[in-house]
Structure formats: C-alpha cells, structure tokens
C-alpha cells in the first residue's frame, strides 16, 4: 500500500477553507519561491561578505588574487578548514559537536609521515585510504560513546581531544616529520593544480558537493536534521538515531583524517603540535556559516563559505594594513556579527508569520 492511498478518499476534501488558519498556503510559483529562498538565505549574505573582503583586498594589492601564488593560496589555504567545517557542520546539525578534530588531524598527519618513512613502497592512495580509515575509527569511538551512552558530545569529544592529543605526543615524542622524509610527488600534491585550481581545493569541493547533495536529497540526510531538531521526537518517529549520530561522527573523523594527510602534503613538516586549537576554528566556521549551534538547521554550503571567509579574512588583513596581532579580534567580531545576523533574519520570519495571521484576521 502506497502512502498516497490516504488522500484518494471521497470525503471532506471540499471542506470550506473558512477554518481558523494560520498562514495561507504559499501561492508563489516554484521558481519564484526558489529565487526568494536563495535571496533570503544566510549563505548568500556571508558569501557577499566574502566577495567584498576579496574585492577590497585585491584592490589594495592585486597580487592578493592576480598572482600565481596569490591565486593558488586563495584557493588552497581555506581547503583544510573547509573540510573540517563540512564534517563539523554535519555533527552540529545533529545537535552535537566534535572538539576532537584537531587531535585526530594531528594523529593522521603524523601517521602519514610515519607510513612514508617506515613503508617506503606504499602508494600514495594507500596512505590516503589508511589515514581516512584511521580518522573514521577515531570518529567511531566518539560516536559510540555519544550514541550508546547518550552523553553530551561536548564532554566526550573534549575528553578525546585530550586523549588523542596525548597519544600523538607519546607516539611522536619530540620526533618530527620533515619535508625531506616525504616523497616529492606526494609533496607536489600540495601545490599541483588542474586548470589553475589546486588539487587540494578540488578534493575539498568534491567532498563538499557530495555531502551537500546527500543532506538535501537523501532520506538519511534529512534525518540528520530531524535528529538535531528534536532527538526525542526522532525516536518516536522510529528513526535510527544512534546510527545517524554514529555516522555523523565517523564522517567528521574521516574528514579530519583526510585533512591530516593533506596538511602533511601542504606543509611538509609535522610536529606533535599540529592542529591544536583548530577545533574552535571549525566550530566558528560552522557558526559563521549559519548552522544553528543547537542543530536542526543550516547547510554545509554555509559552513564551507564560513571557513573560506575566516581564512580569507586572515589573509586579507595584512594587505588592508591591519597588524596581524589584531586578526583574532576581527575574527571574533565576524563570528558575533554572523550570529546576530541570524537572529535578525529569524525575527523577520517571525514577524512575517504574525503579519500573515494579521491578514487572515
């Protein structure tokens, strides 16, 4: 029996619409509706900020964009944070948070180096695979603890942040990976470009596109939102909450693992301190990107733009003649601005609902 059966019923369908109604069913055409939602979207607003920053910086100093290095860095630098932000966004949408990404990234970054040193024969693809897997496993640990004991992820991942970092430190000790230890074609990956777009960026964008598409069009994707919006209701709906939460953390871990490899390819040197503090940047990117910190709403597109914006601002400030000591302050203002903006948009929608009710009265 299809779910449609219900409406094929010779019955009150003709019921007068003279009921106590809240909001008229939208009469906009799908196209118009799409247009308006895009125009109103949070994503657009911060995308415009990003464009503005880039334009101003480029006007000040056109090598910001129009030099081989400038162009490359414009794309490469945000890529790592972007990947972390995508994973973080999915976790946050399920009303969780993953603070351990920095430590996971450090683990796999060092692992990458060790693999190349200890298993010289190993093909680069294999290294990627191993590190992504390793990240996924670490994410799985987070997910297990959160989903099966249902305890707050903030606490769990704060704990694993310490633990994973501790493991890196004990493992690496004061040993470090130097560019010299790494195969040159792996290092080249950090700067290779296809049609002037760096490979790192292409990888990041591909991941972003895949995750974004899944979240919007797959049942599973929608369930992430449902779970984040009201976990208890999700259980009553018969959604498999545990599996989804688990999946979110595994994804976040796997992406952090990937970032570890890419970090090594890009920076060539790895010490045990890699990525400390980056977890807050990732959360910041997500927040700036308009993902509600308490889950249920927001998109990975927004998170990605948020990451891009944070990094680009940092790159732009010096060109704008702002001493780099002030960068963190500017980022702070940016975050606050973003969430205040969210609130304003939300209030506007609420006012609309009120007016809509006004109409019917």
């Amino acid at each position, binding site marked *: 029996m299809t779910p449609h059966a219900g409406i094929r019923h010779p019955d009150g369908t003709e019921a007068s619409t003279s009921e106590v109604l809240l909001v008229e069913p939208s009469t906009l055409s799908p196209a118009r509706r799409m247009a308006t939602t895009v125009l109103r979207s949070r994503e657009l607003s911060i995308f415009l900020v990003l464009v503005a920053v880039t334009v101003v910086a480029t006007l000040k*100093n056109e090598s910001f964009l129009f030099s081989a290095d400038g162009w490359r*860095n414009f794309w490469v630098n945000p890529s790592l944070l972007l990947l972390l932000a995508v994973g973080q966004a999915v976790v946050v949408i399920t009303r969780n948070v993953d603070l351990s990404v920095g430590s996971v990234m450090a683990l796999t970054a060092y692992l990458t180096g060790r693999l190349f040193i200890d298993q010289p024969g190993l093909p680069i693809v294999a290294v990627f695979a191993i590190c992504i897997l390793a990240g996924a496993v670490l994410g799985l640990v987070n997910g297990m603890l959160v989903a099966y004991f249902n305890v707050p992820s903030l606490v769990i991942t704060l704990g694993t942040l310490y633990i994973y970092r501790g493991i890196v430190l004990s493992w690496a*000790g004061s040993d470090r990976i130097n*560019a010299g230890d790494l195969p040159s074609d792996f290092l080249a990956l950090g700067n290779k470009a296809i049609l002037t777009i760096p490979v790192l960026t292409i990888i990041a964008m591909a991941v972003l596109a895949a995750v974004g598409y899944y979240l919007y069009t797959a049942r599973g994707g929608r369930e992430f939102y449902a779970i984040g919006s009201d976990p208890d209701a999700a259980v009553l709906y018969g959604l498999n909450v545990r599996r989804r939460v688990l999946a979110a953390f595994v994804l976040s871990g796997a992406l952090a693992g990937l970032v570890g490899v890419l970090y090594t390819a890009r920076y060539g040197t790895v010490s*045990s301190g890699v990525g400390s503090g980056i977890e807050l940047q990732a959360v910041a990117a997500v927040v700036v990107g308009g993902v509600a910190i308490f889950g249920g709403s927001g998109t990975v597109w927004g998170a990605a733009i948020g990451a891009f914006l944070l990094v680009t601002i940092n790159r732009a400030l010096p060109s704008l003649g702002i001493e780099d000591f002030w960068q963190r302050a500017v980022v702070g203002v940016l975050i606050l601005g973003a969430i205040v903006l969210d609130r304003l948009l939300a209030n506007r929608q609420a006012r609309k609902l009120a007016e809509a009710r006004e109409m019917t009265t």
Partner: protein
Amino acid sequence: GSEDSGSDSGGESDGGGDVSLTMLPKNLGNPYFDTSTTGAEAAAEEVGATIEQVGPETGDDPAGQVPFINTVAQQGEDGLIVSANDPEAICDAIGEARDAGVKVVTFDSDTNPECRDLFINQATSEGIAAKQLELISEQIGGAGEIAILSAAANATNQNAWIEMMEAELESNPDYADIELVDTVYGDDQDQKSFDQTEALLQNHPDLKGIISPTTVGIAAAARYLSESEAKGKVMLTGLGTPNQMRPFVEDGTVEAFALWNPADLGSLAVYATAALVNGDITGEEGDTFEAGELGEFEVGPDGVVLLGEPFTFNADNIADFDF
C-alpha cells in the same frame, strides 16, 4: 630512575652520588632542542650526572615552564638547565628552586641576569645579528627590501637579535640600501610560520630577502619558497639545522644559513652546571672551568659563558653535518 655511571665523585645522599640535572627546553618536539639535549646527555655521561628532559608541549604559554621548575624544586635536583620562554615569568619559580638548593643555568634564551646562576650564550647577539645581515646582504647583492620571520613575539633572544640587526642596519654604511620592511612572528609553529611567509611575499611584492633567526621558521619559509614563484627571487637565510635545511640547500632555495652546534651548547651547559654543583665555580666573573673536548671556558660579565661564533652552512659543507 638513575642509571649509575661508574665514575663517582663519592659524594653523599641524593641520587646515590650522581649529580642530578633536569633539562627544560622552551618546548618539546623541537629538533633544535633535541640536538642540544643529545649533547647534554653525552656530557652528562662524562661528568657522571643523570639528566632528564622535561617541558611543555608548546612554547606559547609564558608560564608553561613554571610547573616543571617547581617540580625540580620539590625533587631537590642539583641543577636545572633551562631555555627561558619568558625573561620574567619564570624568575620567581627559579628563585624558589635556587632557595631549594638547585643551581640554575639558562642556555639559548636567557632570563633576567639576577634570576639565574649562569647563562650559556651560543654567540653574542652582535655576532649573530652581524652574521645574518652579512649573509642576506651578499645574497641580495647589498640592496633591497628584507623582512624578518621570528618565533614568539616575546622570545628574549629573538628580540635581542632583531634589535641588534635594526641597529646595525641603521649604523653600518654597507647596509645603507637595505630596508627592513616588516617583522612577523611564526611562534615556532610550522603552519603559522608558513602562512606568515606567504603573507610577507604577498604584502611586499618587492621583497628581496627574508631572515628567519629560528630553526622552525627558516624551515617553514624554505618549504614555502621552494614551491612558490618567488623561489630564487627572494633570498632566505637565518638560523637552521642542517638536517631540516638540507633539501632546500640542495634544491637551491637557500644558499647559506648559520647556526652554532646546539649539541655543543647543551654539552657546555651541562659542564657549567656540574661545575657549579660540585662547587668548582661560583658563577663569579672570571671563574674558569673545563668543558671536555670543547676546551676551557671563562665566565664573563653578568655570569654569561660564551660558546663561540655561529658557523655558516652551505651547499659545500652541509653534507658533513647530521643534526
């Protein structure tokens, strides 16, 4: 645990006659300090001392070293060898350690002179500053914009050298055409130093040279330059370890850079501390002591012991070194 090395100065009590030392670098996971610790351990063998390295993970917290200094005081070790993250913040803790009978020797980066017994200086600030300017000057042909990529904004030694360089640039007519346009800080973190290098090149299109007087910084900068269009156009020198810099010297990103041997620095620090502990010297100006194959050293003004002049590494000699 103290592994007993046969040569015993038949003393009494602590650690079964061994001189017990603690090595406290700015932070762990820093190849420069690892090398100096290696040297220190070798020297410790010689003088029959036990030595242990402890330290914070990162060098960015000024007070990060204090708990370790406190611990040394609690343990009543004989000597502490420390490279100060902050000239002031750890003084009080050092004071307490000295009250507890610990001899405190700073190396590589000093505290305020009155805090410690001795400072083992790798080279005079003048010497280091002069050396790096000399290198960059000949690499950029004596004219053009240069910038400095430093470590933490508060590192005592870094700031001392930077001041010296600025002074030298002012005064020395040879450098009249060289302009120091910017100083940035990489906090001895790979990524930050790397990104700072990028920012330098981006914001100073006419940049000719970069001086990075810190091993982490110069390595990161070299790594960035080696892939950037600026390779060969922008010269890079500073203080680095041969092992980290080897690929970049070989691929021509870097012509020459300087450094003393950190191992010698560590080993000298141990000999000096041991001499203090055994009462051979008091740290007075003019005291002299033997430092194994490094020879004899004399305590200068402000209780400073000078290792020597920095050594220049280049394509011809870099193969001979392994640290």
